């Protein structure tokens, strides 16, 4: 009996131990520490962090327009990012599940931007917005290309949206393709026999059947756009005049540019709460729309 218990304990230790320890050291402990720092005025260097109570939080909500601006930017960006990536992703999937000659090549093309990291993409697109668009504008005379793409508040917002959609629509396309392929053929054929047109089949059969994929894709696109950082950093650095500073970039600047770790931690905790709330709400809301088969 004792030997069995010892063996079970050893097994628990060997199987679960490593993952649990790394998780504790890298995620759980820092998270709790961050919670503690958020109530201090730590500057990242001092050995002792002075207790500040809820001062940081009060400051953020009353005297820090940059953080609220970053939230407003992130919110607008998320709404557009999620609508456009999902729309394009779904349309591409809908077209590329038909018997097209170039089907597989096109799937590869649309997915490819996603495998490149946001940081490098941002730099590549910086060149295109600054030089590439200008030369297309010169050649065609279209004013669209002659806009100062990274120079004004609204155009730089759209620049990030464009790159984000280009980068991520293909990933959602892949998920929608597998969902569309899983819809039983009998179901669509039955609808056809009953006289439903292409549009009606899409509206009343395909879309309800792929709702689980919609849940996943909304979740992914919201979390990508809400945590926007790399692309933001390399494409606009949050400029011009902080107009495109995302929440993640704002927290980073607070901690590492201004060396206010306590304040940065408080912002990070607020960010965490908002991300957690949105994720839970969104999954709960779309789960209800899924149909059981």
């Amino acid at each position, binding site marked *: 009996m004792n030997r069995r218990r010892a063996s079970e304990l050893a097994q628990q230790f060997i199987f679960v131990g490593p993952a649990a320890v790394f998780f*504790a050291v890298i995620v759980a402990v820092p998270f709790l520490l961050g919670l503690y720092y958020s109530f201090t005025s730590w500057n990242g260097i001092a050995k002792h962090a002075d207790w500040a109570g809820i001062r940081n939080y009060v400051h953020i909500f009353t005297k820090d327009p940059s953080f609220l601006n970053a939230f407003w930017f992130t919110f607008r960006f998320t709404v557009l990012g999620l609508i456009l990536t999902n729309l394009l992703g779904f349309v591409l999937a809908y077209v590329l599940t038909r018997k097209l000659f170039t089907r597989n090549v096109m799937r590869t093309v649309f997915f490819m931007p996603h495998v490149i990291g946001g940081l*490098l993409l941002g730099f590549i697109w910086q060149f295109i917005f600054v*030089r590439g668009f200008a030369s297309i504008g010169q050649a065609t005379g279209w004013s669209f290309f002659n806009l100062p793409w990274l120079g004004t508040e609204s155009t730089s917002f759209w620049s990030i949206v464009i790159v984000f959609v280009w980068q991520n629509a293909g990933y959602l396309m892949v998920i929608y393709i597998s969902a569309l392929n899983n819809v039983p053929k009998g179901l669509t054929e039955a609808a056809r026999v009953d006289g439903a047109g292409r549009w009606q089949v899409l509206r009343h059969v395909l879309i309800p059947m792929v709702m689980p*994929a919609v849940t*996943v894709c909304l979740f992914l696109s919201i979390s990508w756009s809400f945590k926007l950082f*790399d692309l933001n950093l390399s494409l606009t650095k949050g400029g011009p005049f902080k107009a495109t500073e995302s929440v993640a970039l704002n927290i980073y600047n607070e901690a590492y540019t201004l060396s206010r770790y306590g304040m940065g*931690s408080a912002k*990070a905790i607020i960010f965490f709460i908002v991300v957690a709330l949105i994720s839970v709400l969104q999954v709960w809301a779309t789960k209800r729309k899924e149909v059981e088969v």
Partner: protein
Amino acid sequence: MVVVEIVIVLLGLLFLVPFYFLLVNSVKEYGSILTDSANWPAAFHWSNYREAWKATEFPKAFLNSLIVTVVSNLLLSLICAMAAYKMVRRPTRFNKLLYLAFVAAMVIPFQAIMIPLVKVLSGLSLMDSTLGLIIAYLGFGAPITVFLFHGFVKSVPVDIEEAGKVDGSSPYGIFFRIVLPLMQPIIVTVIILNTLWIWNDYLMPYLILQSPNLATIPIATYAFFGQYTKQWDLALPALTLGIAPVVIFFLVMQKYIIEGVSTGSVKG
């Protein structure tokens, strides 16, 4: 049908335009990049690549990225497969609670832990080391990885393991000889998802690594840009080199990557 085909091909070409700009200008002289960036190069300046290769110390950055990505992936898959297996097969109160903690942690954004993480790592003398970075990936990648494995193990029938037990296999033998091989499809998926993330990650290596010698591709690229702002005749070939490994990897492995992404999403 033909119209749909033409429209989708045109859209595909539009998607490729950024790569056209990147490649074509990466072999031009500085002057002609500025004057006509849309045109086909009049002359090919391959020396741009030679200089960018040297300036970014490309082989070193590539090797650093490769080591971090491969080692993190192998260890992450192994320890998370083991943990998820035990959590499913022995759902003690502790294991259930731990699993709950992993699932809850999936919503934690990296920014919420980055500030204290650096302190914890320096306390453990793991700053500015490849090992420290790998350990950080093991911890931060564990929640989603355990979650994906957990879902898969639940669908594996216990009967096969019972047969192993009857044949006298130890619990470790059962896991490594029977369960782990069965988990192969989900392991491929997990490795693909974690590779895309780890290879391209910027912030975590930026915070943990300081020595230029340890820099991964995103870090080396960023540092390069700080130094050579707007020097596009060097920057564009450097960017091309930077994206080449992952694009080639994708083109070679695309069948698995696309399958992996769709299975990963179903489980998530």
